[in-house]
């Protein structure tokens, strides 16, 4: 699902105004300047674009960009498989 991952990265870069080159798996959300409002803005954009709903506690174990992206990918893929 490399295409989906790429699409999500583009969406995050656009929505959170972060340089795409910085969006690498090891970066922490703090490094990226992705605060709670930024996270919810991204969640909102993903929900609108893919018609999914992301639970409020979906990111409780997220500490870096890789795991953040994995949660979003998982939600979209689950919806597509349904």
């Amino acid at each position, binding site marked *: 699902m490399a295409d989906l991952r790429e699409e999500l990265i583009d969406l995050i870069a656009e929505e959170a105004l972060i340089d795409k080159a910085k969006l690498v798996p090891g970066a922490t959300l703090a490094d990226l300047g992705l605060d*709670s409002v930024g996270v919810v803005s991204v969640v*909102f954009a993903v929900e609108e674009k893919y018609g999914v709903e992301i639970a409020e506690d979906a990111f409780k174990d997220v500490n870096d960009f890789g795991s953040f992206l994995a949660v979003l990918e998982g939600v979209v893929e689950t919806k597509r498989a349904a």
Partner: protein
Amino acid sequence: MTSPRRIVVTGLGAVSPLGLGAQATWEGARDGRGAIRIHHLDAGPHAPDTRDTPAAVIEGDLLGFTETLVGRKIGASLDPFALMALGPAQEALSQAGLIRAEVLEDRTALVLGHGFAGIHTLEVGYERFFGQKGTRMHPLTVPKVMVSAPVSAVAIEFKIRGPVFAVSSACASSGHAIAQGAAFIRSGECDVAVVGGSEAIVTPCCLRAWEGLQAMSPTTCRPFSLGRDGMAIGEGGAVMVIEALEHAQARGATILAELSGVGLSSDAFHWTQPSLDGAVKAMGRACEQAGILDGQTVLISTHGTGTPLNDKNEAAAIQAVFGESAPRQPVIATKSAHGHLIGAATAIQGVIGLIAMREGLAPPILNMLEPDPECPLDLVLGEARPIEAQAMLLNSFAFGGLNTALVFRHWR
């Protein structure tokens, strides 16, 4: 007692239906390129069918223009009404030579006026809530909707750290913003003020609300014309940099005009009907303060909304204030070109009028059928007319009876 500090204009910026940038806006007005057109605003599946709505909208790439000006991505982080303030602020500060200047750190005020707030964001949010029954609102809804969003965006962008806030008085909002900025300079609290306003209310639901007032034309805006039947809404923003004369001179800034009269009044009378007394009081105060009632030529940038009542009242007020010289003063009404920018109206007309005075050309009033004999004024019609004005009077009379009149003197 020492005489009050003199105040001059050193920077102008604008985005409007006439163009992106102050110069493009001026050229559109000068060349009589009217921007009021019939639109169909689709509010989605939960709204009633669209219908013909005259309005003037920004047709260029506002986001791209603004991102290029400020040199960074903005994306969807700002409501259009904040975006419409940011670009003009950059343009005005750049012309004034004040980008990253030390004076912004403390002795600069920033006051912008808006009749409304982030209406685009609000309508999209409401559609999601009431229409789609969405359970969550976008996390930036509040910072995008709040009426102080534009001043915060501008302050953050340019690091303006003096008094910063928004003011609101419907169609006179940016007139009050300019007056408030001038007061900060006059009192000595600030040396510079970034003032103006913005408005972005060409949205499906908001325009229906305006139609409810029975003040909107079903076709277009025809100021001082027989057969005029109301106003047309426009969108945009405009910003001026004003500063103490000695501050501008000490740093060798190019002076564009002097703000030499400020007249404010309230009718305390009626929501939508104008009052002769209120208009005369504001205009008279501004003109007396500026000392321009001695027969000199004054370019009058009228409120000129194209409603039957406003234009008749404003013509009577001009006659009352100018007396014998009233029929000789060139009168313009640029809302016929860019529509009524409500909270940004005074500021956009200020930018156009100041360039007009410097260029010695008065832009024409558009959409005229035949001059109304009840408004016996020297209306500039047809094409731009050469003028030699020593000053400009800029009128704004808001719903709710809130009036501002500003006088700018030509600077030689």
